[in-house]
């Protein structure tokens, strides 16, 4: 099925990171080791084709920590399907990031 994105190793890693709770841009950069010049354009592309959606994090969280609210990205249904297909291709990714500490955006 065509998800509108190329299911390369890089995009698969980013999708997996998103699925396992790393939903902020810089967090994805941290955990995948990919450079920002790769991650952000990928995220833009994902959003363009509807594989992820993005939102500002909850105001309260940001306020509490005295900083500006960050933007976080969520996989859509199509995104999850794309991830499933990517995992079929790159089996090693299944266990990637699972079990690591996950900062959740909706922690209030």
């Amino acid at each position, binding site marked *: 099925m065509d998800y509108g994105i190329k299911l390369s190793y890089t995009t698969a890693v980013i999708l997996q990171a998103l699925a396992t709770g790393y939903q902020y841009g*810089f967090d994805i*950069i941290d955990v995948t080791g990919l450079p*920002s010049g790769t991650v*952000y354009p990928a995220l*833009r*592309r994902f959003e363009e084709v509807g594989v992820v959606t993005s939102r*500002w994090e909850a105001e309260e969280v940001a306020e509490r920590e*005295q900083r500006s*609210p960050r933007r976080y990205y969520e996989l859509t249904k199509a995104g999850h399907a794309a991830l499933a297909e990517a995992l079929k291709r790159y089996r090693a990714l299944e266990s990637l990031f699972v079990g690591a500490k996950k900062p959740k955006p909706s922690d209030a």
Partner: protein
Amino acid sequence: MLRGRDGVKLKSFSKSGHHMLDHNKQRFTSWPQRLIAFIGAIVPRRFRTRWRREWEAELEYREALLAKWDKLDWRSKLELLWRSLGAFWDALWLQRQRWEDEMMQDLRYGARMLLKHKAFTLVAVLSLALGIGANTAIFSFVDTVLIKMLPVKNPEQLVFLERGDVPPGPQRYLSYAFFEQARTQQEMFAGVCTFAIENRRVNAVLDGQSEMAKPQRVSGGFFAVLGVNAMLGRTITEEDDKVPGAHPVVVLSHRYWQRRFARDSAIVGKTISLNGYPFTIIGVTPPEFFGAIVGEAPDFWTPTMMYAQLNPGSSIKQYFNNPVFVLARLKPEVSEQQARTRLTGLWQQTVLEEIGGIELSPERQQALRQQNITLVPASRGLAFLRAQFSEPLRILMAVVGLILLIACVNVANLLLARAMARQQEIAVRLALGASRFRLIRQLLTESLLLAGLGGALGLAFAWWSRQFLLTLVASGHTPIALNVTLDARVLAFTAAASLLAGVLFGLAPAWRATRVDLTPALKDSARSSEGGARLSLGKSLVVVQVALSLSLLIGAGLFVRSLAKLKSLDAGFKPENVLLVSTDPRLIGYQGKQISALYARLLERFKALPGVRSVSLSRQGLLSDGNTKPLMTMYIQGQPTRLFSSKEGQFYRPFVSWVGPDFFETVGMTILRGRSFTAQDFAPRDNPNAPRAVIVNETFARHYFGDSAPLGQRFGFSADKSDGLEIVGIVKDAKHNSLREQTQPTYYLPALAQDDTTFQLRTVADPTRLITAVRQAVREVDANLTLYGIKTLAAQVDETLVQERMVGTLSSFFGLLSLLLAAVGVYGVMAYAVSQRTREIGIRMALGAPRSVVLRMVLRQGLILILLGLGFGLAASFATTRLLESQLFGITPTDLVTFIAAPILLLIVALLACFIPARRATKVDPLIALRNE
């Protein structure tokens, strides 16, 4: 709660009631933040705020995190900086969005505009299509003949081996012995092969069907060197070419297989009889392959060792004694220089061996040292075509380039008019804050859209005209088989031409249109102050158009006159009402005296046909390929005369022509002095020592005998028969090879040839009507005899003019086209000028000016423009037509007739174009005109 765009809270209030955070204020002014602000400048405005927030938030967060972990040292700061650089790629990615949005907007708007003004769009697209189409059509020929590489593997590795110290021409060919030497140089070449250039047609019989076909003899390595694999069966290999006469195999070309055998898949293995000898078909080549000579598509290939079988009556030794063309594939690790040095050494060795150890004089040693072998790139194959057509093609490219320019000028004028009509709309948009750049871009998009449509239509035009052009090019007497396709390169060319055209005609009007003085434009005034400026640009464009059109007309005129001069040239014979028929009885087994006897019989038969005035035959035709004997010395009155002038490096060999009885009468050549051949001259001589009769032409007489009367003089070509030929008549000079040539000294011998020959039949009426009767007569004499080359002498003469005809026809067509385009341009500008002056005209007429005065006034305005254009055009033509000198015949590049007739023609047409709006001006009703303003 104050929410800004995107729902982001701008200010928030805590329970205590005062502002906790003002998200609008930048709290961190560290380097990464500043970088984001800097990069953010290129992000489209639509996304900019959100984008900056996102990046700043992330960087803030990370910095805070690092501070919390006490890791905020220079290393992590650097890492942060590095991360923020990624924002650049992000911003770049977002450019696409902006571009896409605005581009789509522009395109949609442009398309709407074009559809609204259908008439304008139609005219513009049509003119562009003609211009671009013409360019594409000519370029596709340029591509095939001059640029395209052979459709073989790695063509850039292919080289021709030639003598480097000799001027270009057949003297550069190498000996067969050397070819065999070169073949052994396996360290240098991946393969070496040779192929014959002159290949006589053969009689090909399969399943009882007989047809003349075009063969090509190639050495065993031919297909390997070119890297071509058979599509069906196999190709010729070295094994097939080892022993003379041992491997009668043949590889069919795809074209031939398709045409004659209807793609019979069982063709491999069948036997085909060539000139009576059975050959086996072993394969078929792939579709695009045509050999190594551009413009020649042989029907099939056979090994060179089958020479004797293909040419009955000759032996393979003849082939080995002649120079050959050598084609090789250089190994990639060997440099050209290395190969050249090696080969030169090898050549000198070979020559010394041939001489056989004789001591050489110092001059000859020196001469030998000069000789060298050079490598000539063969990636484009051999193309005699190139030499013949490269100049005409270049001229035509210039011509169509000018056409495109004229078309662009036309469209620019049209666009300018349209843009001026939209002054108000543009002014409003500018006033509302649109950037001028944006507007220009939008107008340019419209132009590009027009250009794109014009290009697409032009491509269609080019495709249709392909066949016509091919016919023009191929109407010479060597049939040319070109595969002219619209391939990727041609398409790219068309796209580039369209783009260039679009920018060319779109930029100036767009620029001018947006340079609007807002206030007067916003007021509802159709009389814009820019009107005058528009007119001046329009006027100068028209002057340019007229000048260009004149140049094209003059060029066309020169070519047409050149062609006319060639056609009316006295070729020394009378070409009308003569039918030519060629045949080669050797192909069906005739030998020696049998052939002469056959010819005699045929001559009688032909003479008896009704409608035939006289008949003759000749070994070499008129205005077809002739050859000279390779002679060194001629003996005149017993005295030897060197035929080689070392001063000029030229051979003054006389041409020889064997002719049958009544030849001169049949072809219409005039005997000036002495007599023509009689029947006695053809009869076998009783006394073998008596001299043979010979007739020479004027040039011969002049050249070898000067002022002394040549009648009765004798000459010969060998020491023991130094006076074997006696001149009995002098005939007027006639052209034998081409109309442009200088006549060569020629002598005519009476003989019923013993090889192939051409019959000439002078008829009372249209010669083509006799073709059936001639065929019938031949069939009655020998049903197996195949005829070829059946055409009229007039047609043959025409064939030699293929180049001139092509250039003449096409340049006339384009010249007239440019005339039309210029007329349209003049009309457009004058119409606009008149509309500008409607008020003035109205006033004048109200004040009592007669119509004729108004007419004269308008016409005068137009006349000035036209005369200016003609002036520039004449000057430009004077300066540039000298470049065409090599193509012209019989007229100078500044031929007075052309230079007078062309401007007059243009003047008349342009004045007519002016006349229509001028007349419309006189029809202006003064009341309406005055009221409108």
